[in-house]
């Protein structure tokens, strides 16, 4: 292996040039035309999330319409990441379409591992690109003013609570709309938890809430929502230009958030320190949790007793959803917006067919069909398009869609968990320190002080402080402008 002292700037330039050359060399053809009765086969690598089950159930419709056979292979999160990186490094055409976590976009785009979809979108009016919620595109799919993926499943965060418990405790229903949430604060949230914690409901002793405590990734997913609501920002300046990755994680806001996170843990089952995402959802489904906040897929997942088991949970028809509270009455809100999107590896030899699949799977019709799949219950409501949220049939199946849409529109995946290069390393140390604070091994102040030092070391060690590469003013407004431009508006 040769080792040359190239700079990252040179590398990015080379990657960009290679990407452009690849795009130019690809016969895009008339992308609006469906590849009728093609005998092509494409390989799709996805991740084991609920949307994967729904997608598999409707993929035959794509094959019937286009003649393109789709091989879907589903992997776990870590296995998918490892498989993709190995494929990219060895330049092997492992898949034609891949599921991309929002955190991988910067790495994959900057390295030229996936190709920009701008050309495809711009030349294909069938994509109905203007129908996407710009917040979803911004959080999941854009990087440096290009669209690299299209969202297949977007997740915001919101509250689920037991209506029967609230009734027994004489607590008013929570606001399901931002318009009604003017006075709805985190302090109110804690007040309710303290009131319901330990209550007896039909012979069951209730916990106020449950947290996701497992380190490092799961705990960051839940904690970062609370801390963002409290005003925490990770860096001095990002995503607005010029980027300055000097860490600001050890702020007063975050110290307050971590103290309150510990309060949340005290009102949760002690074993929730080891809970993954679905452990928390399943625990709520089992009936001894009063209220919790989580990713919006759990709005429907809690209807099952276990994770995708198909057995109705005891909390069906006893659960309502609500919007997240703010730190102060009527104050600003930032909602975590994450999820999965579909991208195209630069090495794919079937780029036209791959685009047809991406366009179809993220399109309004396929998304609706996924939402209507009833295998083990209805298991997909993670829409990214306005038309799906307006659909009467889908609203009947998923009555919480209005609340979910409001949370989506307050979503900002680039602030709550900023997808900066080396985010994974930062998340690793952050999650560990939050978990350490939960165990009581360190105080919240010590945990965040250590986090800030580690952030500084990691960011400096990776040449990100000072940031020597050109920044981009990565704002929602710029994504809206890009969306309008690619939609021909």
């Amino acid at each position, binding site marked *: 292996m040769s*080792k*040359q*002292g*190239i*700079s*990252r700037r040179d*590398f990015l330039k080379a990657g960009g040039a290679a990407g452009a050359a690849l795009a130019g060399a690809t016969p895009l053809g008339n992308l609006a035309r469906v590849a009728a009765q093609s005998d092509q086969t494409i390989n799709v690598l996805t991740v084991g999330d609920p949307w994967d089950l729904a997608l598999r159930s409707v993929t035959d419709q794509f094959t019937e319409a286009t003649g393109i056979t789709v091989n879907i292979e589903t992997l776990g999160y*870590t296995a998918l*990441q*490892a498989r993709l*990186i190995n494929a*990219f*490094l060895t330049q092997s055409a492992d898949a034609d379409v891949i599921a991309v976590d929002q955190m991988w976009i910067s*790495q994959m785009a*900057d*390295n030229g591992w996936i190709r920009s979809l701008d050309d495809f979108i711009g030349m294909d009016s069938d994509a109905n690109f203007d129908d996407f919620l710009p917040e979803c595109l911004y959080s999941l799919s854009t990087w440096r003013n290009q669209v690299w993926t299209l969202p297949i499943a977007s997740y915001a965060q919101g509250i689920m609570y037991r209506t029967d418990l609230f009734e027994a405790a004489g607590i008013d229903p929570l606001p399901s709309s931002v318009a009604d949430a003017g006075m709805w604060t985190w302090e109110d949230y804690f007040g309710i938890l303290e009131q319901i914690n330990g209550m007896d409901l039909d012979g069951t002793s209730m916990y106020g809430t449950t947290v996701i*405590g*497992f*380190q490092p990734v799961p705990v960051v997913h839940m904690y970062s929502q609370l801390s963002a609501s409290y005003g925490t920002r990770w860096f001095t300046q990002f995503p607005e230009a010029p980027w300055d990755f000097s860490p600001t994680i050890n702020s007063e806001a975050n110290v307050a958030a971590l103290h309150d996170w510990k309060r949340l843990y005290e009102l949760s*089952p*002690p*074993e929730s*320190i*080891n809970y993954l995402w679905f452990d928390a959802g399943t*625990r709520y489904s*089992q009936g001894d949790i009063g209220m919790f906040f989580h990713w919006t897929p759990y709005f429907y997942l809690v209807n099952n007793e276990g994770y995708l088991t198909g057995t109705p949970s005891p909390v069906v028809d006893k659960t309502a959803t609500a919007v997240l509270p703010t730190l102060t009455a009527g104050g600003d809100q930032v909602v975590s917006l994450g999820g999965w999107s579909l991208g195209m590896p630069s090495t794919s030899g079937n780029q036209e067919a791959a685009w047809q699949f991406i366009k179809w799977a993220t399109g309004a019709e396929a998304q609706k069909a996924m939402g209507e799949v009833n295998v083990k219950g209805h298991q997909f409501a993670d829409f990214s398009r306005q038309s799906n949220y307006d659909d009467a049939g889908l609203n009947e199946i998923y009555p919480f869609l209005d609340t979910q849409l409001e949370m989506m529109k307050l979503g900002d995946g680039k602030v709550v968990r900023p997808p900066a*290069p*080396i985010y*994974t*390393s930062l998340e*690793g*140390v952050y999650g*560990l320190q939050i*978990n*350490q604070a*939960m*165990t009581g*091994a*360190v105080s919240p102040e010590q945990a965040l002080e250590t986090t800030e030092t*580690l952030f500084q*070391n*990691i960011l400096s*060690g*990776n*040449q990100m402080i000072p940031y020597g590469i050109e920044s981009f003013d990565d704002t929602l407004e710029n994504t809206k402008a890009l969306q309008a431009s690619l939609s021909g508006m």
Partner: protein
Amino acid sequence: MRNRYTWNRRLPYLLLAPSVIVLLALILYPLAFALCNSFWFWNLQMGPAPLYYSGLDNYRLVFQVTPFWVALKNTLLLGFLGTFAQFWFGMGIALLLHTHLRGTGLMRALLIMPTTLAPVVAGFLFRYLLEPKGGLLLWALEGIGFPVPPQGFLGNANTALLSIGAVDTWQWTPFFAIVLYAGLLSINEEVKEAAQVDGASAWRMFWSITLPLLRPIAAFLVMIRFMQLFNSFDLVFVLTSGGPGTASRTLSFNLYREGLVNYNIGLTAAMTWLVVIIVSVIINLYLFFIYRKREW
């Protein structure tokens, strides 16, 4: 005549050459490759190729950005305590088997079963058994009044590492028992009979005859298991993922995090070399003390 002499002298080297080449390719090359990488900044999150020569920065970063010391402490605890427990439990079972009680044949067959499980399977098995809400083992322990932490054994910082050690001990004690039992069978009974005639107690015979005669086997077993425990990953990954906090972080788990989650190849290479040095020092010290008097 001279040609034949030269040929005879070179033949052993020629016969050994294939093995030496394979050994070099499989051991020295990867180590040299890792050593080389440890001096380069190579993070796949930042780019697919090494970006620049970074000297000893990666070694410095091992201590600055990873929980190295706590992982080393946990790894040593797991290695020493696990090996110690497995050796003595295994010895006890081997001695019991050697008494030729009824059913020892069946016991031997049953004993080997945990060892045949993949560690990841054993991990999942115990994860469910130790589940705080409905775990069978936890329920049984609570039933007999055993103090169970509210977070469960895997969620408590004081018991997480011990739980990993206990599962490993459950799985690997039979291995010790069966190999030591084979060792016991190889001991000449006449030696024991002579000691009995001289009036030696069972305790004295164990310390002065059985144990010294088992030493060649025991020394090897202990070394192999210590090295395996030092590199434990599967059980840690499945049972606790190093948590809560850093309570059960081990060096292997650190390597996994940096190499296969953070994709920091340079840093991982530096950490690998530190682990190689630590294991080599421990094993060579062990071998020095064990083999310095080659009485057997």
